Each structure stands twice: as C-alpha cells, then as structure tokens.
C-alpha cells in the first residue's frame, strides 16, 4: 500500500512539470462544455420564413404578424407568387414557407373552414419537425381565437377537444438543459479515458515500465497507483463542469449533489479502467489513442443514447448498449439534474455501471504483466 503512495506522488510530480497537462485537464473541459453546450442544441429559433400572401387582407396580415412576432420565425419575404417558395427554399434563403390562399380573409370573416399551406425543407429533418410543430401551434391558436370570438358569450364549447399539455422537468423544452448534463458525461469519458490510455503505455515507451517491472511492485499497485491520481483529476473536473453548468448555463440541479458526485466516481472508475485496459493492449501512445478514440469512445457515444434515443435503435443493437457505461451514467446524470430523482429510480443503472468498472479494472490489472511470456 505504501508503494501506491509513492506512485501517486510521482505521478503528481510529473504532472506538475508537464506543461501540456494543465490545459488538457482543466482548460479543455471548460472549452468543450462551452462549445458543445451552445452548439449541440436542437432548439430551433428564428426560422427564416417565406410568405405567399395571395389574399392581402387585414386577416392575412394579422396571421403573418403572428409568425413574425413569435421568437421562432423571422419573415424573410412576402410575395404573391407560389413559385417564389421553391426558389427561396432551394437557395436556403428560407427554411419554411407559409402560403395564404386568396379567399382567406373572406372565409375567416364568414366563419368558414379555410386551408393555409405550410411548406418546409425536409433536408434538415430535425429543424423541419420542430418548425412545423411551432407553425401548427401558431395556426391552431389563431383558429381557436376565431372560434371563440364567434361563440355567443356564455355558450358552451361544443365538439372541440382542448388538450392541455404540461411538460415536466424541462418546462421550456430547452435542449440546453438536456444536452449539458450529457456533455458532462462525454467530457469526463474523453479526458479520463485518454489519460488512462496514455498512462502505462507512455512508461512502456520511455522504458521506465521495465524499471518498475524489476522492482517488487505488484500489478494491482501499479494499476491503483495510476487510477488514484487520474481519479482525483476527474473529481476536480466533475466539480468544475457541474459548477459551470449550474452557475453559467443555469441548468437546475434538482437532485442531490453528493449523490451525483459519488456516482460520478463510479463512472470515473469505468472510464479510467477502460483507459488503463487500452494502455495495456497498446504498444505506443499513438496506438493507444487510436484504439481509445475509434474502437471504444466513438461507438460508445453513438450507442449510449447521448445523440439517438436507445428506444429508437434496431432491436439487435439495443442489447449492445448495455455494454456501455456512458448509457448508465447518462440516465443517472440527467435524472439527478433534471428530474431530481435519486437512487430509487436508477439503482440498477448504478449497480451495472459499478460492475462494469470493477470488471474492466480487473481485466486491466490482469493484462499488465510484469513478466512477458
């Protein structure tokens, strides 16, 4: 055990003198959080909208003003020719178009049904879906207002279903709230897995590993001696990123911070052990980096539910996601942040994650041979 202490101390002495380590460990996560936090957003705002107003009545202008006045749309042009829609969308000048028929004002005045057309650019299916939802809501609101105005005061509303939707946990449906906890998970994985992957293979390259191998140092002492210092760095990163998420991005942390911190440690056990395992199967740092990034991290990110919901994946793929610790941590970190729930709702994920970490750590320890065969 005393040997582990000497290893940890040595690791910090080296880190302190390595000028490249500070930016990697402390600046990179902050930068990545900002870039991913702001860029990885699925919110759609200020959609450029082309309007074809064939009616040119007070009623049609009122509808256009509702679109332009909403934060979701910006009217980029009003024309009378339907052909302009195609041109505007092809040149990406507009993402959506609203076409108001010539009889719109008259029909609305008489209280008769009328159809307006919404065209959207499906090549960006995400924005299209979101934009269409906003457009439907705006039009439905207007329709409801018109219907209410024609009803005699006090008369009951007949034949209409009034759906009152309440969004829980993230009432404004801000993707930032959904993304930032995920980015925390991603950042921790990238930084600590890379640190772990470099750890042993770097000493292999420098020749110092061989010198360690002729001392009475035990295999587990070497693994733990690497795990502890990088785990400590990971803890600092957890505090750093969580503070930024709460104080800067104003993401509500509804659950318990100690629980989040504790489970983050279990997650760090997974990512660091994975890194150390990669380190033991690689011959040099470059190889370790490639293996860590392309063989482990990229597939993990795609299959974890960070980008695509696991429920939407093909049935054959879904079982594979159970092999990915990021999957469990995402459930935990989003649960604690947004829902404020505790272990009672994700104890299974926590246990599986712990099991994964212990297994991979054991594998890494067994792989780090002191005597080559």
């Amino acid at each position, binding site marked *: 055990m005393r040997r582990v202490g000497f290893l940890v101390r040595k690791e910090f*002495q080296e880190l302190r*003198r390595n000028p490249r380590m500070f930016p990697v460990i402390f600046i990179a996560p902050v930068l990545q959080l900002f870039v991913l936090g702001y860029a990885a957003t699925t919110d759609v705002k200020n959609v450029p909208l082309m309007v074809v107003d064939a009616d040119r009545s007070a009623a049609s202008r009122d509808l256009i003003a509702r679109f332009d006045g909403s934060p979701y749309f910006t009217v980029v042009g009003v024309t009378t020719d339907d052909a302009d829609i195609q041109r505007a969308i092809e040149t990406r000048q507009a993402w959506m178009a609203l076409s108001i028929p010539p009889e719109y004002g008259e029909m609305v005045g008489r209280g008769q049904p009328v159809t307006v057309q919404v065209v959207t650019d499906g090549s960006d299916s995400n924005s299209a879906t979101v934009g269409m939802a906003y457009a439907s809501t705006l039009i439905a609101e207007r329709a409801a207002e018109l219907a209410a105005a024609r009803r005699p005061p006090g008369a009951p509303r007949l034949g209409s279903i009034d759906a009152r939707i309440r969004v829980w946990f993230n009432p404004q449906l801000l993707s930032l709230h959904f993304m930032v906890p995920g980015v925390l998970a991603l950042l921790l994985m990238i930084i600590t897995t890379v640190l772990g992957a470099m750890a042993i293979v770097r000493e292999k390259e*420098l*020749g110092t590993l061989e010198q360690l191998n*002729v001392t*009475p*140092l035990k295999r587990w002492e070497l693994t733990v001696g690497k795990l502890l210092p990088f785990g400590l760095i990971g803890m600092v990163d957890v505090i750093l990123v969580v503070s930024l998420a709460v104080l800067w991005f104003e993401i509500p942390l509804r659950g318990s911070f100690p629980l989040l911190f504790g489970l983050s440690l279990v997650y760090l056990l997974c990512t660091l052990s994975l890194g150390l395992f990669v380190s033991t199967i690689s011959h040099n740092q470059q190889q370790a980096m490639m293996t860590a990034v392309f063989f482990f991290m990229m597939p993990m990110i795609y299959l974890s539910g960070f980008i695509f919901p696991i429920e939407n994946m093909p049935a054959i793929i879904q079982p594979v996601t159970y092999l990915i610790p990021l999957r469990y941590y995402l459930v935990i970190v989003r649960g604690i942040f947004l829902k404020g729930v505790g272990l009672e709702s994700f104890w299974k994920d926590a246990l599986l994650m712990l099991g994964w970490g212990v297994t991979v750590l054991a594998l890494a320890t067994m792989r780090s041979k002191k005597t080559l065969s």
Partner: protein
Amino acid sequence: MPAVTVRELTRRFGAFLAVDRVSFDVEDGEIFGFLGSNGAGKSTTIRMLCGLLKPSSGTATVGGIDVERDPEGVKRRIGYMSQRFSLYELLTVEENITFFGGLYGLDKRRIAARRAFVLEMAGLKGREKTLTRDLAGGWRQRLALGCAILHEPSILFLDEPTGGVDPVSRRQFWQLIDRLSGQGVTVFVTTHYLDEAEHCHRLALMHAGRIAALGSVAELKQIFRERAVVEVRTGSPMAALRALDDLPTVEKTSPFGTALHVWLKPGIRDTGPLRTRLDELGLPAEPFEFVQPSLEDVFMDVVAREEAASS
C-alpha cells in the same frame, strides 16, 4: 553455490531463436561479462535472468531462486539497469531516488541513508534538485546505477550500461563497478565495448544466440597460442593485404588501424615468405613485429569460426 546458474536456456520470438541452449555459471562476487554484437542474444538472456521475460525452455537460477517459478523472488534480490535510460526525466535527482527506494520497500530512514550514499557515489551532491532530464550522460548513468542498488542487492545486472557515454565517464563508471565487486556484489554485465570486457573476471562471447567461447581474458587469448600474429606496417596496406592473403603460410589477414595483422598458420613462425612477397611487389615495409592478439582479434576469430561452422 554460484550466484547464477544457467542450463540450456532458450528463448524464441516466433520463429526467431534469440537465445539457443545457453549454459554457464556465474560465481559469487565475480564480474561476469557478456560480449557480443547487437542481436547476439545478450539482452534477451539478461532479461530472462531478471524475471522480465519467460524462458521458452531450459532453467536458470539467480541467488538460488528459479527465475521461471518465482520471478518476483528474483526481483527482490537483484538490481537491474537496462540499456535505455529508465529513470523519470521529469523528476529531480532526489525524487527519483526516493521513488525507487519507496518501491523497494525501504523505510524513511533507510531511504535518507541510501540517498546520501548514491549522491556521493554518483558525484551528484549539490545537484539533488536538478531535473534528471537536464543531467549529462555520465551523471545519468551513475544515477541509474545508484537507483538500481538502493536496496543493496547481492547480484547486479547491467545491460550495456555505458552506451553513448564519453570515455572519462565510462572509466568512472567502471571504477564504481570494480568497487561494488570488491564489496562482494556479483556483477553480470553485457557490453559490446571490447576495452570494457577487459574489466571482467570472466567473459562469455555470444554469437547468434549461442555462447561461442567462455573464460577469462587470458584463457580466451589462448586460442592464439598455436598461431603467431605479425603486425605489418607498409605504405599501401590494402595492396599488401591482398598480396599476403593467398600466401601458403598465411591463415588470414585483417586491417588493424593503419597496419595489418597477419595470422600465420599453426606452428609457423617464419616471416621470410611475407618479406619476399612484399619485396616482389615493391611494397616497402617496416620491420615485422610479433604481437599479442587483442580481445578484438579473439572475438573476430571466434565469430568467423562460428559462421564457418554454421554454413
């Protein structure tokens, strides 16, 4: 009991036979040298003896412990210095000493005592806080040696310890080795410097994974007892070399500095035919001298015979 016993030790890397049925003993307290060209199998042998590499077959004991059965037991009793500098360059001199002392399980007081000893031995007093990265070659080597003997092992393995070090530092290094040997430490050293080999009590010449010859320097030179070596100095050594090579009394010739060494066939000591031949060709030469064969001559001769035998 010998410090090291090796019997039929063999190591394969795939199809390549790096060490081929090697057997020898190293006596307690001796400096035992392993001499051979690059790729002869010296480092592979030493790494098997240190418990870093598993033998493919054969046995070896170090300090009475079987290296295959208990490599960790071997590691507690030996010191090892690899041919690559393998201390932490981003650590200071004293941080390296403390770190390795800690790994060898020395307590605080012992580490302090050994640190003082190593700083003194390596001539690094006053440089305790210097980053190891900034040390010159000779100091690095002596520090690496110091770190390898922190736990006072009775057997020390040195794998080409003086590679890339200037001659003065090499001499100082060998003084340290002689001192350790005087204190009863068994030293097993590989080298390809022939002058260093002269420090060894006994030498094994290694070639292509086999031990080609083994003995003290004097014993090894005995292989030339039957054959006289003549040093020839002439204005055009290459022409003389070709002219003398096919004389019936000459076994072989080789350039030696600006001169030639001519091996006469066993039993022949008459240099008359050499003189006659050079005179015929109009190559004036200084008076011939019989010379003591050098270790280099021995080594080249052994290698040539091994090559001839295997082809």
